[in-house]
């Protein structure tokens, strides 16, 4: 009985606070008098998710969608990496620099402004939230690389990707640039040697921090969206024809 009560309380916690305040006692009463079957738990979970989505901010929804897209791309990259130049894989790797992503941030800034009519700061913060959520898989990858759990293979334009069977839990990083890096050598007197290579894997700390370094730029794109929203709001309030005709009349005469 105690477990049942605990489970009902836990299920109710999944609903938004405002909803819980309004309907929580009724739903609790209903769940307490019947056995919690898998069907009922699933039904309540689905309903709680729906209520959460209804009250969620646009930035949370877009951010969570981006997180899922990135996570999906990350998993597919490990399980079945595509050849160098594959559009989806290149887009996911260079997401933060893509025009599509910038448009998404501007769009979310605009959406947030039109919804709340708030300050530009609010639109900027919405874009920052999206970038942070989208960056979670990359930060996680950085941590796994740092811990030595996730390996990295650098794939150049002419290289063939390896299969999961061959590389195991390894991320395929697409890179065509020749860069300087340090490699470990077997010579006891020199432990690290500088080389120029296309096969330099990205540093774990760099991977971990790279999403955070994009946050200020995201803020700017979101604020720009907010500015656009403000401009749209003003032009809606002021009818275009009636505001311009009186100004043009003296010239016409």
């Amino acid at each position: 009985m105690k477990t049942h009560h605990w489970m009902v309380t836990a299920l109710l916690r999944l609903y938004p606070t405002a909803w819980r305040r309004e309907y929580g006692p009724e739903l609790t009463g209903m769940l307490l008098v019947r056995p919690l079957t898998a069907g009922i738990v699933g039904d309540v979970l689905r309903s709680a998710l729906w209520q959460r989505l209804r009250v969620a901010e646009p930035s949370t929804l877009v951010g969570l969608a981006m997180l899922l897209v990135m996570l999906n791309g990350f998993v597919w990259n490990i399980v079945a990496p595509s050849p160098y130049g594959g559009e989806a894989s290149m887009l996911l790797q260079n997401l933060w620099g893509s025009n599509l992503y910038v448009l998404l941030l501007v769009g979310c800034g605009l959406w947030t402004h039109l919804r709340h009519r708030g300050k530009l700061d609010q639109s900027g913060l919405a874009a920052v939230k999206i970038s942070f959520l989208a960056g979670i898989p990359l930060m996680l990858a950085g941590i796994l690389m740092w811990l030595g759990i996730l390996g990295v293979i650098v794939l150049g334009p002419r290289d063939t990707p390896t299969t999961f069977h061959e590389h195991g839990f390894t991320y395929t990083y697409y890179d065509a640039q020749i860069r300087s890096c340090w490699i470990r050598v077997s010579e006891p007197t020199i432990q690290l040697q500088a080389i120029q290579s296309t096969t330099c894997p990205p540093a774990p700390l760099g991977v971990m921090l790279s999403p955070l370094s994009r946050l200020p730029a995201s803020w700017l794109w979101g604020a720009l969206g907010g500015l656009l929203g403000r401009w749209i709001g003003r032009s809606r309030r002021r009818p275009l024809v009636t505001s311009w005709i009186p100004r043009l009349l003296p010239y016409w005469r």
Partner: protein
Amino acid sequence: MARKPKTGPASDPELLILSSLASGPKHGYAIMGDIETFAGVTLGPGTLYTAITRLVEKKLIAPQVSSGRQRPYKLTAEGETGLTEQLNDMRRVAAVGLRRLRPA
């Protein structure tokens, strides 16, 4: 336990709740039991309260004051009109469908 039909008007929880409240105010548990009796559909508690939330927001039903945990809901005038229109539409469609199904 009755199975929830996948399609058809009997699968719309909002319509079922409105139909249940047409006979008078009821609380969540009573609505659930009533729907099970007249439509043979068992609504999950989550589905029931999601539909109730939507109906309250649309002002088709209204919660009433109660002292206990269970709060009764009643059909508003708007809800009554909406339900009547919806059921009349359904009756028209059903009549046409049944007429066409009848052998000439």
